[in-house]
């Protein structure tokens, strides 16, 4: 019996017996997991274990993959994300996402941040929102004098923080991060990690990572997935120092994966 923690406090996101199929392959196998409000939860596991797929269920990005099929439930604040009548577009505004490779739009820094608020009908002062979002993403000081220059001129780490600022600008409640630092150098990685620590004041953060040190540094709770199954889920400290499952121990001590 896998040891899955029932996390304390309010549950923001929850999967109940959630399965995802890509055509005939079974990528996530009946996973049940609760993600507490304003905490950082890390999904770890070897490549192909289903951690990114599970993450994408929570903002319905799997909808965009032809042949993807979902069984079971994914809940956000108790409501089924896949219930009929739920609009994926609105789900994605409230549950933001940052991708593995920085993907700024080939537009100005300002327009990158302002795009989401514009399409979502933001009625406040745009300049203030852009500044606030860039400050939250710890990028403002570096770009405040060149908001009109192309986002593509930024370094990789800056681009990724811009993508985070862009996600924050639509005022989501949850931030999903799919290996957000795996394409970055150690210094840029550290900035992202510091930022994640800041973000949990206001947001629930779910981060998929290959890097176990990173999971240990930034997360409150860690889930270990293997071949589509959730093997172990618990407080990060405990999972890394005193894993209950043999497979977890094998993975975190580097015996496979």
């Amino acid at each position: 019996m896998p040891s899955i923690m029932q996390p304390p406090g309010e549950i923001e996101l929850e999967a109940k017996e959630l399965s995802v199929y890509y055509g005939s392959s079974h990528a996530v196998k009946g996973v049940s997991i609760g993600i507490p409000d304003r905490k950082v939860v890390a999904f770890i596991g070897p490549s192909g274990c289903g951690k990114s797929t599970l993450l994408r269920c929570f903002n319905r990005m799997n909808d965009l993959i032809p042949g993807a099929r979902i069984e079971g439930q994914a809940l956000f604040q108790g409501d089924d994300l896949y219930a009929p009548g739920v609009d994926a577009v609105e789900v994605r505004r409230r549950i933001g996402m940052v991708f593995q490779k920085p993907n700024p739009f080939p537009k100005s820094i300002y327009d990158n941040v302002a795009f989401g608020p514009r399409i979502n009908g933001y009625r406040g002062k745009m300049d203030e929102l852009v500044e606030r979002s860039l400050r939250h993403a710890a990028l403002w000081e570096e770009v405040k004098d060149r908001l009109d220059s192309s986002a593509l001129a930024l370094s990789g780490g800056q681009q990724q923080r811009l993508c985070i600022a862009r996600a924050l600008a639509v005022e989501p409640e949850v931030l999903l991060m799919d290996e957000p630092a795996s394409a970055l150098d150690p210094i840029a990685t550290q900035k992202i990690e510091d930022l994640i620590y800041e973000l949990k004041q206001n947001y629930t953060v779910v981060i998929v990572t290959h890097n176990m040190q990173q999971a240990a540094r930034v997360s409150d709770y860690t889930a270990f997935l293997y071949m589509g199954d959730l093997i172990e889920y618990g407080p990060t400290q405990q999972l890394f120092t005193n894993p209950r499952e043999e497979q977890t121990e094998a993975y975190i001590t580097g015996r496979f994966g």
Partner: protein
Amino acid sequence: MNRPQQGGLAGGTGLFNTRQQTRKRMGSAFAVLCFLATAVGIVFLAVLLIDIVRDGAGRLSSAFLSGMPSRFPARAGIKPALVGSLWTLGITALVSFPLGVGTAIWLEEYAPNNRFTRLIQTNIANLAGVPSIVYGILGLAVFVRLFAFGECVLAGALTLALLILPVIIISSQEAIRAVPNSIRLGAYALGATRWETIRDQVLPLALPGVLTGTILALSRAVGEAAPLIMIGALAFVPFVPKTPLDEFTVIPIQIFDWINRPQAGFHEVAAAASIVLLIALLTLNGTAILLRNRFSRKR
């Protein structure tokens, strides 16, 4: 260069024959071949240009541009053909651009990947290879006869629009496909709808490529004579078309007509008309490049 191998696998196995000289020579030879391929095209183009400029430059004048055709080479002008070509080009562009780009967007962004879509795709590719005279027959049957437009600018322009539609569709599809999927996902993740993603992210990025393809296709349309002869564009038009329903001619047909005449004087007139056509094409392509650069620089 020819340093003895050291270190590595216990001093190296000595089994490598790196043939540095040969490999470098092959590289240089390839570059020379590519240069020669380029040179062939440039030389022929230059010969063609020199030839028509030598024959026709003397006949270029404002009187030639504003004159009507005539039985006498010295008095023949190109105005009706020039205006006819501009009319045709304008209507062809207005019809083919929205239809072509719309089709490309649907095929790339909306159409499900099923047998029906693939069938359409294959047929568009095939249509791009159909001889232009066949489009002329179609235009004659549909626009001139069935819709009863008559042998007018509109019928000609619609025929040319059909002719270049496959090329516009295919090049626009290429441009849309070249937009990285990460850009689409980024927009969706911010709560953009599909339409907003296409309008604000995909199309602006694809636009330079779309414009390039469209302009190349339009250049081809401007140079076409065969399908327009088929639908009944006239060879001798002593009036300027004022509406799309007027009878007309275009520069390539005018050139064809002049070249077929026995008098040597008309050959000079034909060369002069070719120069006008070339300048028109050059202007068209130049505009396209300017437009494209402006859109590209905005990023």
